């Protein structure tokens, strides 16, 4: 029997992430990505969480080790619904996000509604 080789990709639901605090989300993503996984987040992160993730990533970069993350999210959309306007804090709608180790995931092309990425099995 031939063993399958490749990478692990986890598709993380909005529900799963919504149960975590911002700090837990960032920690969860960093731990998973550092272990070599590629995550697809159904609803992405808030802009503040994205900034915190970048900050945390920088503290963990090591020469000849972890070189950072590749993260691609679609631009947020402003919630123009009545409820969105009332709940100002939730007026930004975050969207699907792909995150992986920088040495395995490479974005080829991205626009407002399409992300094309290459996943390498060679580190």
């Amino acid at each position, binding site marked *: 029997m031939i063993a399958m080789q490749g990478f692990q990709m986890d598709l993380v639901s909005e529900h799963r992430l919504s149960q975590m605090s911002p700090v837990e989300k960032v920690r969860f993503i960093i731990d998973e990505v550092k272990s070599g996984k590629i995550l697809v987040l159904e609803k992405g992160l*808030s*802009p*503040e969480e*994205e*900034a*915190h993730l*970048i*900050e945390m*990533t*920088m*503290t963990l*970069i090591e*020469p000849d080790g972890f*070189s*950072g*993350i*590749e*993260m*691609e*999210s*679609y*631009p*947020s959309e*402003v919630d123009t619904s009545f409820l969105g306007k009332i709940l100002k804090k939730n007026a*930004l709608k*975050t969207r699907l996000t792909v995150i992986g180790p*920088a*040495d395995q995931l490479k974005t080829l*092309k*991205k*626009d*407002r509604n399409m992300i094309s990425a290459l996943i390498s099995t060679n580190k």
Partner: protein
Amino acid sequence: MGVITSFKRNFSDLFKKLFKKQNARIGIYGPPNAGKTTLANRILRDWTGDAMGSVSHVAHETRRARRREGVTIKTNGSSITLDIIDTPGLATKIDFHEFMEQGMDEAESKRRAKEATEGVIEAVKWLENLDGVILVMDATEDPFTQVNVTVIGNMEARSLPLLIVANKVDLPEASPSTIRDAFPQHPMVSISALEGKNVETFYEELAKRFG
């Protein structure tokens, strides 16, 4: 007498704290090599006769945020005084091998990479202490980078003003319209910070957005 003097001083300090208008703090953000420091130098040379920092074709030349207070810009009969913060280029990955490819030795490359990571952290921390952002994009590059998306998202989440600068329009492959189409909800100015092309329009927009 001492009590009265002390009272006057305290009252004066309180008055200043309550009514003194602080300059708006405007951060210059963008990916590495977008031309942030070139733009900061252009602003300072035009309005203070000074410069902010050195520039280089090697990414992450700016690895510490630099702040210049009280830069007064006069345009169309009005004036605006800003504190300008030139921030290190934002990135989600930093690999020292990329500096070695630019001709640096391994030790120097590792040192630069370490400083670059610290610079990114500093730039992210500044995001929470600003009144507005000038987001510099290289008009020859794809505008949908994660850095651009994250900075714009943070400004929108805080309802803070943002001015997009499509830089490097002196280059033949520049396509500022691609940037405008990518982020149509925000004002954009096309300039060449290096050559000074269209900077008057940039200053007018700056006063309009942050004044």
